[in-house]
Each structure stands twice: as structure tokens, then as C-alpha cells.
């Protein structure tokens, strides 16, 4: 019989706030351009286009896509500490 895996504790609110602060910071023009202009591999490009193809196939209209994103966000928030 398999042992039950240990329970994973979600990150603390403080840790999330710190991550949010890092993610929301304003980059300098140089940092921003370095990020935007980094070469895009064919794999990355395909991954983006595949995700767009899936999303637009699953939710054909803008209204359906917006509604799906609203629902997904609400579910995501419920799972946050």
C-alpha cells in the first residue's frame, strides 16, 4: 500500500505579497526591451499559438472567452490563501 504523500502547505500571504510586488514592479526601458526582444524560439512561438488555437476553439467568441477567464480567475482566487 502506498504511503500518503505529505500535505503541501500553500505559501503565506506575506510570501504572495512579496511575489506580487516583484511581478508588479516597473522595469527600466532597457530591462523591458531586453525581455521583449529576447529571441523567441520556435517552441515558444508554437506553444503560444497552440494555446491560442485551443482557447479560441474551446471558446469561439470573445464573450465566451471573457466569461471563461472570469470563471477561471474566481476559481484561482478561491484556491489562494
Amino acid at each position, binding site marked *: 500500500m502506498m504511503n500518503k504523500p505529505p500535505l503541501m502547505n500553500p505559501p503565506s500571504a506575506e510570501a504572495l505579497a512579496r511575489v506580487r510586488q516583484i511581478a508588479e514592479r516597473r*522595469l527600466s526601458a532597457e530591462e523591458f526591451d531586453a525581455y*521583449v526582444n529576447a529571441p523567441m524560439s520556435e517552441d515558444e512561438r508554437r506553444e503560444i499559438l497552440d494555446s491560442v488555437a485551443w482557447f479560441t476553439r474551446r471558446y469561439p467568441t*470573445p464573450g465566451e472567452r471573457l466569461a471563461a*477567464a472570469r470563471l477561471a*480567475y474566481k476559481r484561482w482566487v478561491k484556491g489562494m490563501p
Partner: protein
Amino acid sequence: MLADEFPLILRLVEASHFEEAKFFAAIAASGARALLIGRRALIALGLPLLTRDYDFWIHADDVAAFNAGVSGFDLFPSQSPEEARAKGRYVLENDEKVDVLVARTVFTVDRVRVGFDEVWARRRLIEVNAGVEAVIPSLDDLILTKRFGARPKDAEDIRMLEALRSQESK
């Protein structure tokens, strides 16, 4: 006294019955020149992303019309139209959060001047639901607006929009 105020208090604290299609229809009916920008615009175009906010860039003269248009959704402006124009942005909030940019011009992180009137002239329509349209910037202008905030996620969004543009140009 309390009995008189209670319905108002209840209205303020109860969850709003937000219907997205009606929200966009109300904005269209308001007559305000309002561009949907930010991640909601990207989602409408087909990028699977998460976001809490709605972001709009509206004409500086249309703050009152925009606010009146969405007042039926219990969205309360953080500032008066005059204050919002002076500051260049404000928030409408209840359960939903709507960030509103009201500046006539905005500069990108690399100091490129972007004027509302020019972006508005190049606008595109998307049909959110049957008979309900929203206005978004052209793909090139949407990329420019992503250079206003210059956060890491804006850079990531631009890379996705560039991939989308590369496909559309084929």
C-alpha cells in the same frame, strides 16, 4: 433612521449581479469613447490569461458619461471626474474592479508619446456577444499600451501578441 439607511447599506455590501455582456452593452450605450485595453482585451483576442481587473482607456471628456453608463453595476468611482482628469486615472470598484486611464497622452517606458485620439482613430470592434460590441485598440496600439506600465507581465504579454501578429501577417 437606520431603517432608512439599511437598504442603502445592504446595496453597498451585497454582491453585485455583474453580467459582462450587459456591462459592455452599457459602455457602448453610454456614448463614451472607451477602449478596452489590458489583459481583458488580450483574452477577447484569444490569449488564455488570468486577470482580476478591467482596464479601459477613455477620452478625458467622457468620464461622466462612462461613469453614468456603468452606474447600474454598482461600480463606484474613486474620484470625481475633475480629480480623475488631473491625475490621469481612477478606479471604479465594487466586486469588480475597473481601472480607467483618462490621460489624453501617455508615454511608453521608452518615452514614445501615445495619444488617445490617434489610438481611437485606429480602433477595432470586437463582438463580445450577439449584438454587443466592445472597442479595442489595433494590435500595434495594444502592444504600445502594454509599454505604459512596463511590468514583467506586460513584457510577457507583448511577446504573446507578437506571436499572434506574426501568425496574422502570414
